[in-house]
């Protein structure tokens, strides 16, 4: 595969050459290239080529012309229509044997419902702030907008000139950045047509993540003891061992539905949050507790997890969200870690429930009172653990490129992995922590990884 590099005229930005594709009404099934712009070694002797856009492909004859503009390519109009190439964009071009691939053509599956997508479409612009570096077509769509029979998608493509989304019907893209869960039938169709160019491929739950990661020695020791809830006896046994436990739904995020259970002599105290208000309930016998568990928990729908004596200040407990994303080079990058200071007494430290966020380094310095040197060393260690966990998930078979790793430090200074979010980890927490640069970076890298999967990797 060879990228066609050329500088723009004059003092341009450093970008790969991009081309406008112009509909050619004079010839049928032809692509016409300007030989002055395109390196001879690549196109030499090619007479027949497969033009590819997204998952679609058309056979064309190759012609040369010095009459056309340097940054233009002529493509027979019926081929343009067949491939559904939006004309208002510029594309990079990759030659791979007899394939001429235009792109990148990236899809972002952002919501399940079209209605909801329309509401948030403006917010998604932050993903294309770095459009200059992304290029090509960026399509955002909902699960509802996908017509699996016709293999067409109703959605919005970004127009860099107007800086607006253009609604329309488009072909399947070459790579999909999936930010929401979708039904298996659609997943399977995407994988059939796009191969592995989808992240995140599978939405794992808390129990799966725990089980899978336990297989990796380098990660296991950072996972708090956890069992899957099947019956009240599991909780009883766990409490005999640990005195207190969290009960968490295996799906669910932002701390919703988490219960904390403590033994107090023969009694059991339950802490939970209802409509943002913290509540307590006391069970005086094992029987009372069992009844509660039977009525409120579904077998194999919850995990029972050891509580940790986390670092805290007078006002709050603290945990950390580490953002791990892949970029155009396809490697994991730790782009920052945010400390979440929960409201005291709250059983979770989620910002969504009234906590506060700041860069982890500040918390290390001001609250744990580490020296600069210790800050860097602890930060590096947490980064390495997070990356080991990411490798573990990949080896388990999940293709991911956008992870939020929730970690904690206990009073003895031990590091723990509490939870891993792969479906749509919230980048706006970086803004809560007053670091917009981190937020922008997360979003741009997401797109550059999608670009890579679409066949346009950043050359290393």
């Amino acid at each position, binding site marked *: 595969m060879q990228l066609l590099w050329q500088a723009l005229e004059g003092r341009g930005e450093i970008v790969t050459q991009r081309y406008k594709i112009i509909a050619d009404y004079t010839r049928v099934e032809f692509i016409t290239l300007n030989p002055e712009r395109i390196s001879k070694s690549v196109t030499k002797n090619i007479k027949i080529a497969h033009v590819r856009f997204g998952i679609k492909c058309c056979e064309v004859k190759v012609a040369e012309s010095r009459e056309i503009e340097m940054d233009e390519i002529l493509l027979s109009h019926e081929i343009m229509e067949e491939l559904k190439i939006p004309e208002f964009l510029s594309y990079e071009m990759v030659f791979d044997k007899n394939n001429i691939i235009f792109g990148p053509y990236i899809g972002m599956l952002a919501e399940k419902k079209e209605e909801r997508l329309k509401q948030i479409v403006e917010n998604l612009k932050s993903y294309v702030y770095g459009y200059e570096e992304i290029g090509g077509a960026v399509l955002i769509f909902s699960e509802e907008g996908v017509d699996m029979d016709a293999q067409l998608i109703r959605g919005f493509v970004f127009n860099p000139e107007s800086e607006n989304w253009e609604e329309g019907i488009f072909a399947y893209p070459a790579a999909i950045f999936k930010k929401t869960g979708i039904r298996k039938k659609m997943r399977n169709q995407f994988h059939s047509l796009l191969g592995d160019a989808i992240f995140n491929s599978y939405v794992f739950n808390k129990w799966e993540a725990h089980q899978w990661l336990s297989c990796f020695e380098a990660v296991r020791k950072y996972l708090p003891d956890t069992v899957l809830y099947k019956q009240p006896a599991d909780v009883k046994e766990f409490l005999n061992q640990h005195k207190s436990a969290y009960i968490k739904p295996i799906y669910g995020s932002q701390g919703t539905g988490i219960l904390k259970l403590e033994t107090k002599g023969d009694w059991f105290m339950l802490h939970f949050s209802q409509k943002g208000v913290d509540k307590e309930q006391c069970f005086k016998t094992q029987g009372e507790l069992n009844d509660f568990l039977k009525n409120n928990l579904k077998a194999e729908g919850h995990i029972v997890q050891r509580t940790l004596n986390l670092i805290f200040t007078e006002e709050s407990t603290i945990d950390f969200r580490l953002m791990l994303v892949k970029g155009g*080079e396809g*490697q994991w990058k730790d782009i920052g870690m945010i400390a979440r200071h929960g409201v005291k007494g709250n059983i979770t430290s989620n910002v969504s429930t009234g906590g506060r966020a700041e860069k982890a380094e500040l918390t290390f310095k001001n609250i744990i009172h580490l020296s600069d040197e210790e800050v860097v*060393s602890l930060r*590096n*260690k947490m980064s390495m653990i997070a990356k080991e966990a990411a490798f573990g998930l990949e080896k388990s078979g999940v293709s991911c490129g956008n992870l939020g790793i929730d970690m904690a430090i206990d009073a003895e200074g031990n590091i723990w992995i509490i939870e891993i979010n792969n479906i749509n980890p919230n980048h706006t927490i970086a803004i809560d922590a007053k670091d917009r*640069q981190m937020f922008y970076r997360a979003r*741009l890298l997401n797109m550059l990884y999608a670009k890579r999967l679409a066949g346009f990797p950043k050359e290393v």
Partner: protein
Amino acid sequence: MKSLKIKYIAAVTDNLVLLPEEMRESFDYIPKKLILNVGSWKREVNMGFSSELDRDTIGIQKNIFQKFSVPENLDYEIKIDGRNLCVGPVICYLVDTQRKYITHERLEKLEVYYKNYDVIKGIIFISAVDQINMVDKTIGGFFFGEDGWKEDIFTYPGVVYRKADIPDEVYQDLINHIGDRIFNSYFFDKYETSEILSTYPQLKEHIAVKKHQNTPFEFEVIMQKDRSMQWSCSGIIAGFGKSESMETNFLIVGYALSCYEALKTVFRMNEKDTFLKQQEIINICIEVCKAHEKAMGNYGELAIDVILDEEKNVWILEVNKTYDHRFPLYSINDTEMYYRIITKPFEYAKALAGF
């Protein structure tokens, strides 16, 4: 990767390496003989498993290493690659040309480089070029461990990280035995930089010309490789003042900012444009680093002097192959950046050594 200690054993069989019973699983197929690799030293040895060894210990028969030492009390990483058993990493940091310049004070200052030894492991030693013994293929050097500094003789390493000039004859001998795992390989000059960059159409346009050199405002972009062996930016520092040398300038004028602050305050850019401009600078610098590597060899860190003109176009002034790691300390007092910078070369060295 497994981390193990070495224990010297007096064995009945000659030339023997014993592995703990638990390591049996690490082999797809158990060979009769192994090739033991330490640094760039190799030797075929007989191999066995022993249940008497401590877990996480490898037994090596005394006298296997004759001309150099491989200390017993360190943590080593072990890699099994076919019939090769690699123990390491062994990294040599060449800090000067002569042994006599490596004083106590000098070593004290270098201790900071062992800060992340826990994650690197193996042998990291500090040497001068005149300690290289081309006959024995060994290098004298200093190792910093629990008992402080110790001087010893080590094998030719897996990787050389160098900041000093090496005479051609010695350099060729290193290349011959270590291969292309010496960074930074070649000390190019300013003229060669522009020669290299001008062969790339997309970089040529960023080479600064005379008229730009009076800009009162200059960025130092610190580019390093880490364990992923890819270029990334460890930090950008903006300095003010008119002069040839940015570093002396800081001392006189004493005025510097992080790139982020500089773009926001001096160029009055908003958050989004600041991000995109930094991204642009970094992307250009990555291309500059790659261009230098393609033309001249292996580099682990480069510091690139960059300026922006009134239209905020990016211009490259100079590429520095060595620079003072303490720069972020005395310019913008950023200790975090400093520690980030000093830990990266050995992370890269470890990856380059194959660990």
